[in-house]
């Protein structure tokens, strides 16, 4: 472990401690209940009929034969899902319900191979699958288009008649533009300009648990949903919108989650299961197969980006232009703000033009994936910066330091930066023994090694959070939050609450409430949950400590102001307050009822003050030049983590982001056949790195407290996936003297490139 700048941690007992994770024992013993583990009496099974075509108009759907099959209890189609007409946008967070209703059940058209067309609930999974085959769909098969470059050609098949770009029907469904200064003048001013085009394929988040849910629509019209997601309140709201059932009649209970990484910030099955349950009167369970997950849920987008950067001879950046096309899938909504807003954010560049295009094509609609879109922008930008540094004969880290954004600079995406901690991350790498160690470039014949660096930026986020803190009758603490725990939030909150109460960590139990038991809490995503929930847990705990002081004040018959709370006990604040033996949490809890009733409170808040995250990475790679295989030998990742409430989890976030970046850079890609069907819908041929593919990744946690947070917390989950694509591409260039602008850098591509001049 590597912790630098830990000024105010001294004196903390639990904050910063590697406490045992509350979910650990259940997970390693197989006891943790994931979404697919729920079973109910009378439960039946739902299955989805999916489009066999990449692009087709749906002329008619005849479900009559399926309905007659013995064991079938209900069949639903788009007619059972609320229609959001195309002319009016209805937003839930960043999701447009016009697209969500069509993603959950195809309406006018099947837009990708695997698009849901209908669903059946039957007494067994087999019967439901059998019945799906009996549904007769009359398709008018249309020409399809998959890749971005093909989709934006003037003669491309058009997915949506209602989408217009520059006055013509188009597959460009949206744009985003950010600018500052005068881009033309900026480039005129430059001594050197480098412009390159980059492309990449869609990649999967790689969560192990497929989407699954059990839904019960009871006789009184009340709905209960058990499912795994990154937000039970999102499940409730989206299901409500798509089924027309009021939120007050829906209770969404979050299961333990087997990975999400952004993918589970939207839903696929829940509204369908609700309608199947409503029609059949039985609880309905739906579980996707891995193949369905890969064909029909959202990966991160593919990209086609051009980045042009101009600099002075001394390395001062004067102009930067980025054009980012992202592959949205069959319906609009790719994460443009990732590359458009993040690519240049860490740098003080006076003239910037950053433009994003949302391109629809016949593949599954994208979903969020850690720092949505930002790695794609950084891939292009950080490779171009590397090339400029090389051409100017500058150290790439020195050049980044020289151009770092500073406090008071206006960020291209709007706000004025407070303290900017980018330079600290660059400096940490610059002085790290990894960066300063000599590199043996030709260790064996046929093997070349190289070193690369790159940086990354992510906005981070605050938003709504609710935390209930209750004192049990025996004087312990139960904390309920409204956020599914995907990155260790329960462990971190337990550390914070134990610290504030001054009690043993074991006495604090942190649980995740459902939509009926805790106040509204926004999604777990955007690196927001530890920031937001630690802030709100602090407020709740402080209120409860206030209540405890009042109880002690009552017992001692003194002023609550004259009482302090320390080491789990109420004490007179000073000699003037009087002399009383301390009252412990346990004693106060035992006397709670005769002193005014139960002790506990809930705080609900829209949190603000989430400062952005910065990361700088250094990687050594080795290339087998005869086989084209690239292996990562050493990886060091520096990041401003604010305050590591639970360092193991922070390290895990950094290491996990890096591993996902390594896969994105070297081996992962969605491959489509001629018919627009995904050719590698499983983990055998969708190649995520396995353990033996990656070295131990060394995280450098820079603890620079966020001044706007009670513990100094800063989001840590997204920033680490931003730099790896470029860092690895830069290292490969260093090894081979050839720039790779297309991801993944798979062995056939590498050999082909090596054969070119």
């Amino acid at each position, binding site marked *: 472990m590597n912790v630098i700048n830990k000024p105010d941690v001294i004196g903390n007992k639990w904050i910063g401690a590697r406490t045992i994770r509350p979910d650990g024992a259940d997970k390693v013993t197989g006891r943790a209940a994931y979404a697919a583990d729920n079973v109910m009496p009378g439960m039946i099974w739902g299955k989805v009929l999916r489009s066999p075509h990449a692009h087709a108009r749906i002329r008619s759907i005849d479900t009559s034969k399926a309905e007659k099959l013995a064991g079938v209890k209900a069949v639903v189609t788009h007619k059972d899902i609320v229609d959001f007409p195309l002319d009016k946008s209805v937003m839930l967070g960043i999701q447009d319900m016009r697209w969500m209703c069509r993603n959950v059940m195809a309406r006018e058209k099947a837009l990708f191979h695997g698009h849901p067309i209908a669903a059946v609930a039957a007494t067994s999974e*087999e019967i439901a699958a*059998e019945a799906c085959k009996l549904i007769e769909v009359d398709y008018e098969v249309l020409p399809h288009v998959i890749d971005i470059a093909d989709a934006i050609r003037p003669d491309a098949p058009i997915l949506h008649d209602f989408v217009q770009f520059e006055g013509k029907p188009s597959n460009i469904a949206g744009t985003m533009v950010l600018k500052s200064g005068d881009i033309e003048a900026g480039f005129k001013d430059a001594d050197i300009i480098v412009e390159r085009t980059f492309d990449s394929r869609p990649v999967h988040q790689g969560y192990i648990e497929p989407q699954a849910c059990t839904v019960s629509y009871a006789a009184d019209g009340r709905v209960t949903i058990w499912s795994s997601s990154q937000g039970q309140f999102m499940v409730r709201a989206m299901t409500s919108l798509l089924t027309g059932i009021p939120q007050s009649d829906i209770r969404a209970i979050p299961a333990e989650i087997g990975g999400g990484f952004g993918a589970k910030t939207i839903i696929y099955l829940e509204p369908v299961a609700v309608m199947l349950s409503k029609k059949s009167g039985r609880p309905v369970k739906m579980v996707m197969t891995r193949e369905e997950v890969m064909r029909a849920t959202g990966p991160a987008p593919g990209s086609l980006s051009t980045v042009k950067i101009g600099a002075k001879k001394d390395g001062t950046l004067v102009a930067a232009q980025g054009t980012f096309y992202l592959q949205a899938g069959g319906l609009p909504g790719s994460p443009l703000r990732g590359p458009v807003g993040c690519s240049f954010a860490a740098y003080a560049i006076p003239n910037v033009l950053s433009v994003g295009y949302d391109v629809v094509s016949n593949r599954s609609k994208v979903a969020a994936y850690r720092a949505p879109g930002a790695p794609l922008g950084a891939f292009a930008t950080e490779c171009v910066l590397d090339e400029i540094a090389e051409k100017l004969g500058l150290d790439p880290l020195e050049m980044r330091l020289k151009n770092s954004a500073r406090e008071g600079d206006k960020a291209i995406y709007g706000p004025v930066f407070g303290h900017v901690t980018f330079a600290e991350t660059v400096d940490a790498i610059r002085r790290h023994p990894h960066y300063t160690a000599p590199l043996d470039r030709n260790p064996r014949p046929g093997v070349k090694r190289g070193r690369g660096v790159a940086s990354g930026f992510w906005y981070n986020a605050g938003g709504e959070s609710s935390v209930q803190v209750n004192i049990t009758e025996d004087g312990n603490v139960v904390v309920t939050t409204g956020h599914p725990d995907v990155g260790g939030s329960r462990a971190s909150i337990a550390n914070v609450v134990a610290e504030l109460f001054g009690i043993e960590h074991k006495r604090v139990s942190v649980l995740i409430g459902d939509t009926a038991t805790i106040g509204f809490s926004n999604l777990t995503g955007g690196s927001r949950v530890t920031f937001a929930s630690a802030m709100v847990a602090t407020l709740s705990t402080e209120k409860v400590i206030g209540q405890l002081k009042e109880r002690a004040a009552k017992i001692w018959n003194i002023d609550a102001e004259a009482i302090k709370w320390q080491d789990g006990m109420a004490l007179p604040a000073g000699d003037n307050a009087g002399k009383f033996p301390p009252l412990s949490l346990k004693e106060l809890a035992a006397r709670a009822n005769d002193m005014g009733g139960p002790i506990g409170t809930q705080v609900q808040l829209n949190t603000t003050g989430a400062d952005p995250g910065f990361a700088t990475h250094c990687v050594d790679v080795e290339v087998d030049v*005869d*086989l*084209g*295989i690239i292996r990562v030998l050493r990886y060091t990742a520096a990041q401003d983590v604010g305050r590591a409430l639970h360092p193991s989890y922070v390290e895990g976030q950094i290491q996990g982001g890096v591993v996902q970046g390594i896969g994105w850079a*070297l*081996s992962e890609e969605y*491959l489509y056949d001629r018919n627009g069907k995904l*050719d*590698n819908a499983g983990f*055998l*041929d969708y*190649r995520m*790195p*396995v353990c*033996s*593919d990656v070295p131990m990744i060394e995280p450098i946690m820079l603890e620079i407290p966020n001044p706007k947070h009670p513990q100094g917390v800063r989001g840590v989950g997204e920033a680490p996936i931003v730099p790896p694509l470029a860092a690895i591409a830069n290292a490969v260039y260093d090894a081979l003297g050839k720039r790779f602008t297309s991801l993944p850098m*798979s*062995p*056939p591509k590498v*050999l*082909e490139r090596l054969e070119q001049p």
Partner: protein
Amino acid sequence: MADIRYLAPRTLDEAVSAYAAAAGAGRILAGGTDLIVQMRAGMVRPGTIIDIKKIEEMTAIQETPDGGFVIGAAVPGAVLAEHPRFGKAWPGVLEAINLIGSTQVQGRASAGGNLCNASPAGDSVPAMVAAGAAVTIQGPDGRRSLPVEAVPAGPGRTNLAPGEIVVSFTLPPRPKGSGDAYLRMIPRTEMDIAVVGCGVNLTIENGVVKAARVGLGAVAPTVLLVEDAAKALVGSKLEDAALDAAAAACSAACRPINDKRGTIAYRTRVAGVLLKRTAAIAADRARGA
């Protein structure tokens, strides 16, 4: 869903007659690491499954008096790895079989299943071909023997007649100065399917290659015995020229496809690269033997 009959006969004769009786609807089950996966994916729907793991001859490892080995077709990789002498005589064949899948898969996966599944990328097959192994086959018309390379007919198809079961692999005795090796190219370090696989078996006397066999996988519809590569090596001292010629012969023998795992150009080129690397390991082993 149609019902499936499961049989686990104790003798080969029972297995052969049950298999013949089931006609086209029967499937042999060894470790099941291909069959069960294919059934779950809906690719095959057998009416009768004949489990051969209870038949002694098919799960035994025997050493012949002349120093050869007879390996039951259903012997799992993990069991073969524990044999005290097999891996010393045939390190290449053993490493090829042990490359299949993971520890869990090794507890079940067999060389017989790997061969009869007839994937061009099966890892043990090029090593068995290089070893000069033959299979004993039993069917309704009795027993016969085939060289390993004659068993696959194309992806997922074999030259076995209806009702025939592969009983065992016979590996010949080892002359002094022999060594074999198997290498595969996979993009990851494990849990992957060979993009190219190469088995080389050499006998070296006084520094000169006396005998050579080369097997290549994943570069054609079936695993190939590359006789031209062997010819280039025999009589040589494995000088660069001989290795270049053998590598060129391997590339020339390739008839690959473009697919999600590799391109034609890539596979063709890598076949030659792997030949050199595999031959170097086999030669080291031969010189040490």
